[in-house]
């Protein structure tokens, strides 16, 4: 794997994107995005699907009282809201820490050359 090419200043050739694509820096950026976004997406879609299936086929379980008139169905529904907020926050934290610095470094190097 090669490093990101830095084009001479003065030339206005667009960057060689294939070379950038196979560079170590870019491969690492892609890995940092995919290794977070893909499994989490699969996870929340499955969790949503489980909730939908439970609502359709497990009425008895969903009706179990938890607190006063609140039952399992409500608790799971509110939990869907909570996990959505939580994942949004978690992804943003991950992006700020692991994606943005790498993306910005690559971008400024490429645009300085272009």
């Amino acid at each position: 794997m090669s490093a990101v090419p830095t084009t001479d200043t003065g030339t206005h050739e667009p960057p060689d994107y294939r070379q950038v694509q196979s560079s170590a820096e870019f491969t690492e950026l892609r890995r940092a995005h995919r290794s977070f976004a893909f499994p989490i997406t699969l996870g929340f879609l499955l969790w949503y699907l489980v909730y939908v299936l439970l609502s359709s086929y497990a009425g008895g379980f969903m009706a179990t009282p938890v607190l006063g008139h609140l039952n399992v169905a409500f608790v799971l529904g509110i939990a869907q809201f909570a996990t959505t907020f939580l994942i949004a926050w978690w992804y943003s934290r991950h992006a700020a820490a692991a994606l943005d610095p790498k993306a910005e470094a690559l971008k400024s190097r490429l645009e300085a050359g272009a």
Partner: protein
Amino acid sequence: MTLTQQLAAGPAGAHRPLIISLFAVFVAATLAITVWAGRQTRGAEDFYAGGRRFSGFQNGLAISGDYMSAASFLGIAGAIALFGYDGFLYSIGFLVAWLVALLLVAEPLRNSGRFTMGDVLAYRMRRRPVRTAAGTSTIVVSIFYLLAQMAGAGALVTLLLGITSETGKILVVVLVGIVMILYVTIGGMKGTTWVQMVKAVLLIAGTLLITFLVALKFDFNLSALLGKAAENSGKGAAFLQPGLKYGATATSKIDFISLGLALVLGTAGLPHILIRFYTVPTAKAARKSVNWAIGIIGVFYLMTIALGFGAAALIKPEALTAANKAGNTAAPQLAEVIGGGAGSTGGAVLLAVISAVAFATILAVVAGLTLASSSSFAHDIYVNVLRKGEATEKEEIAAARWATVGIGAVAIVLGVFARGLNVAGLVALAFAVAASANLPTLLYSLFWKRFTTQGALWSIYGGLASSVLLVLFSPVVSGKETSMFPAAGFDVFPLENPGLISIPLGFLLGWLGSLLSKEEPDARKYAELEVRALTGTGAH
């Protein structure tokens, strides 16, 4: 007189002048904003993307204003009021869907596209056929969505203003159409964005007020509210459990799964939502706007619990269904009761405020939809396909403005004919088509290097045709009392929502089309797209 009695008595009511004045104030204020925004609209960047200078928070508000349609405000509150827990299921799919947009779509789209969804879909492909396909599916999805909102506008005036004459309803649809054409042609994306922001603030403020009043009435005790709702609904504990609406038969259970799939995968493929990401300067701002939208929309849907169960607890179910069979007036009816009851000043004012907010909601959403479809027509089809990319910026904007007038006219005509149609079916169809035709191509384009032009075309047209055809042969169109053509009987497909079949089919066709493709995928263009999408290099 209560709202119900008024409606039963036909066009009457002390509330009407107040509702109409409030609504007129909203239209006048938003048109003034539009004219102001129009003065600053010069180039294509301004018209399509609002100059790309909105902040993440502003765009988050505008996204919320674009997304929370009358279907979610009136429809979900009504569904909860009548069916209890099952009404709540809708809001969860609508919210979780935003994570797909956040994690996979918003940032790469912002980085690699310019004005439309077609920009990203056609990036690595043979441009003209893919642009044509992307433009077609953008316009089809937006028109179905638009149709639902226009039909909703007609139904709403009947319910809230007591206008029952057919001429009156046609006039309202025409009026909504004209105002939306003015918003978009004059104000472009900048004007539309401000209208959506104003509407989002009004909707959230109105909902907060009612939620607070309901909470006050039940001493901030959720369990007590639920208990009273279950008791008053006459359905007891079943009202608080899933099953009243979707649990009836084996088919309705599968239908619910199909609907859930369409909701959760549709949002990230809705063109009028996708083009909102171009209004901010960077991918980071796009991420921030989705985060704000998730927060605002999430809180709003949580408040629909108070609205829906509040209506169920405080209003007799017969009174809800007498006003509207689907319960669509539950929120305004609740506003009247919680404001002090029929005949009280508080009740009248609150009812008028909530009704005006509902109208504002429709206007902001139709403006966003019209902008999405006219942008795609002008940018994807007119400039890049018909003129082969050889058009000046001035010609392009002129084409977009004319397309707005054309699409507005089509929407008015369809809206007049769609007055009596099943609104919920149309919105769910728009989500299913978006998830089947747009999402697979969008994801493959961004993340799969072996994706080809043939794969994109199979996926877009296959997803589009299968979802539309399945709906055509479903009980939404014929065979049931609630169908568009109740007398006809070509309902050979049992599900009302096609998502369960058409979404996997869209993904499958994209994969198969690429594998069976004779041409090699364009590795150079994919490298360019991938690097730009992830780093923001060369972003517009």
